[in-house]
């Protein structure tokens, strides 16, 4: 996914001082559990105040500032309201994940099943090309798809548990090592999630 000349955000100097991070923009601590209703309310409040529509007749400087601030509010809301994007962003912010990182290596315990799935996918493609009977193959793939969808659900549950651990660690003002261990776990889960999701999407594409 990454370009050769694109560097990750983490090793770069900290962001411009006038730009708040997404949590700070909404006056939230860097925790992973966020109540949706107050978040939305805050989003609407900030939008009401900062939207460029309010500054059409203002100076160019004010218009520029409104554009920048309202885009930051929108960017922050987009990330914070999505539970997975929120974890990704937190890890990037804390330096525990490279921006755009999606490891495409199969998690070891899934290797065997992934191997089988890929074989079935190849067979289906061949059968499609040859115009053969697809029903048995399709049934097999559908079963595999269901299996991986269940695994996706499991990963999401694990993610939720790890997220709660993170929040507890923040609240307890836990030390760096404890935090790092949770972040490594979260990162692992994110990678596994993205891997399985890709699999499920690929199967869905072949089945339609």
């Amino acid at each position: 996914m990454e370009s050769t000349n694109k560097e990750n955000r983490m090793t770069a100097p900290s962001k411009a001082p006038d730009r708040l991070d997404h949590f700070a923009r909404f006056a939230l601590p860097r925790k992973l559990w966020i109540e949706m209703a107050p978040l939305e309310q805050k989003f609407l409040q900030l939008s009401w105040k900062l939207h460029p529509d309010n500054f059409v007749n203002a100076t160019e400087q004010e218009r520029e500032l409104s554009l920048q601030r309202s885009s930051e509010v929108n960017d922050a809301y987009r990330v914070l309201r999505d539970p997975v994007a929120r974890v990704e962003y937190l890890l990037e912010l804390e330096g525990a994940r490279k921006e755009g990182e999606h490891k495409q290596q199969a998690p070891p315990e899934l290797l065997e099943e992934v191997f089988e799935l890929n074989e079935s996918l190849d067979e289906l493609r061949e059968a499609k090309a040859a115009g053969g009977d697809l029903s048995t193959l399709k049934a097999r793939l559908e079963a595999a798809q269901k299996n991986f969808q269940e695994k996706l659900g499991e990963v999401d549950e694990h993610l939720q548990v790890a997220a709660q651990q993170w929040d507890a660690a923040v609240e307890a003002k836990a030390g760096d090592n404890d935090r790092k261990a949770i972040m490594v776990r979260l990162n692992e889960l994110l990678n596994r999630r993205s891997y399985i999701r890709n699999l499920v999407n690929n199967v869905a594409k072949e089945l339609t």
Partner: protein
Amino acid sequence: MGRIVGIDLGTTNSLVAYTDPQTGAPQCIPGPSGSTLCPSVVSLDPDGSIIVGEPARRRLLTQSERSIYSVKRLMGRGVADIQNELKLFPFRIDSTSQNVIRIKLGDKLFTPPEISAFILRELKNWAEAFFGETVDRAVITVPAYFNDAQRQATKDAGKIASLEVLRLVNEPTAAALAYGLHEKQRGRVAVYDLGGGTFDISVLKLISTGEGDIYQVLSTNGDTHLGGDDIDNLMQSLIREKILHEHRVDVSAQPDLVQELRKALIASKHQLSEGDAARLRFELPNGAVFAYEFSRTEFESLLRPIVDRTMGPVKQALADAHLAPSEIDEVVLVGGTTRTPLIRSTVQEYFGRKPHTELNPDEVVALGAAVQANILDRGVKNMLLLDVTPLSLGIETYGGAVAKVIPRNSTIPASAQEMYTTGVDNQTGIDIHVLQGERELAKDCRSLARFTLKVPPAPAGLPRIEVRFLIDANGILQVAAKDLRNGQQHSVEVQPSYGISDTEIERMLEESIEYAEQDFSERQVIEARTESEAILVATQKASALPESTSLSTEERAAIDQSVAALKEAVAGNDYKLIRKRIDGLNQATTHLAELVMNGAVSTALEGRKLAEV
């Protein structure tokens, strides 16, 4: 500062509207003919002047090589994009044009933004005549699914027409704004907008807050090349085939004949929105007559694939908003094509509720634009519109893949920061290619722009340049770059892949003002003719009334003479002469007007001209 208006720059018709400062209600402004619809047709007169609207539409039949319609289909597109349209539309494209299309009218070349600017200028004239004041700013609507280049082209058109475009508003959003005001709805609303050339679906959430109403767009989808035009084209192919078969006449070889058939078929289409059949009678140049009866069933079988094509985007928009059809509280139909019963029933069936059609589907978008114009102009702060970008923004990465940096349906303004560095020592530039679209490979997405980031010579990996991609509230991309080592802003020269440069816009603006001067006399002639028509009809009516028998023979002769003189003037192009003859007829009919008035019950009409009685 002049007045501000809302403009619906449509594929088939364009409209201009304003908000009454007293009542706060939006209203469409009629043109000289009294209609609020300005056909989006432009024609170049052999004398070099530009004709827009209804008179230009009539010329589609007689001077098809000097006239153009549906130019919206060409906005922000390159020649390679429109090969399919060229088969169906009699666009005459300059063969040397590539990324900006150049259209031939007579022997002159125009870009799509210039043609659109002629339409905008006409509407500006309508509004100025209506207010008696200058109009210098506008909110213009665009299909929600328009990409960056199409939006930029629309903004350019405004500039060329000497209008400051304060905001581009998405058409379905504008419609929701007009309806929201009208119906005081709250909840989740789906707007299904099938116009002449484009289809949009938007899902909105209407929220009441302590401070005012917020219209938040949750998702949008569509097809910028799907609309009533497509139905016309299908009917056209069918009938051409039949004419060729029965009469051995190839209609497509004769542009004027194509236009005439198109006109007849559109009339049939309108009939089929109300009745169960439409009779088509079409005279061929060889004197033969082609007659055909379109049944509702046959029409609907042509229409069905088009309606089906709209349902893909509808489902996607709902999925992106995480809503089921049953969770939509209100459905709104917009665009002339939604008058078709098949579309109404399909939409009703899918959402399980009767769609709103109370507002005139031709006017509702312009009305919404006028509401937004009023908000921006007067700082009326009781309403806020939060719209989204319809397409994902991406950057080409290694191997021709696309990394999405701003996903579709992000609330705008939206931005993304990307960090770049060099791969080899003393590298002086980094090439960046920005794209729009949902596909994974750059070649399948729409190229927006390419640019080279200039880098001061340094060891590989040392430079740190942050590039900010920002989609503004109009849905248009802005790019800025900053060298993080010294905090310096870099200027970024973005060369749009499809579009005209600022210098070209300046030149077009100057040329367009020249045309505007020619337009002025042309418009005066049209207005004078319209006025003549009114007084001629009034005179004829009054002369037939019993009161007219009291006129003397001399008076009667003077009237007849003035009528003949006016008719003669109307045939020419001298608007001053027409005005003079109108005054002459008014004088000749003073006594007649008095007689009619005395006969009338009310004396309140005293002192008025005959045409006003």
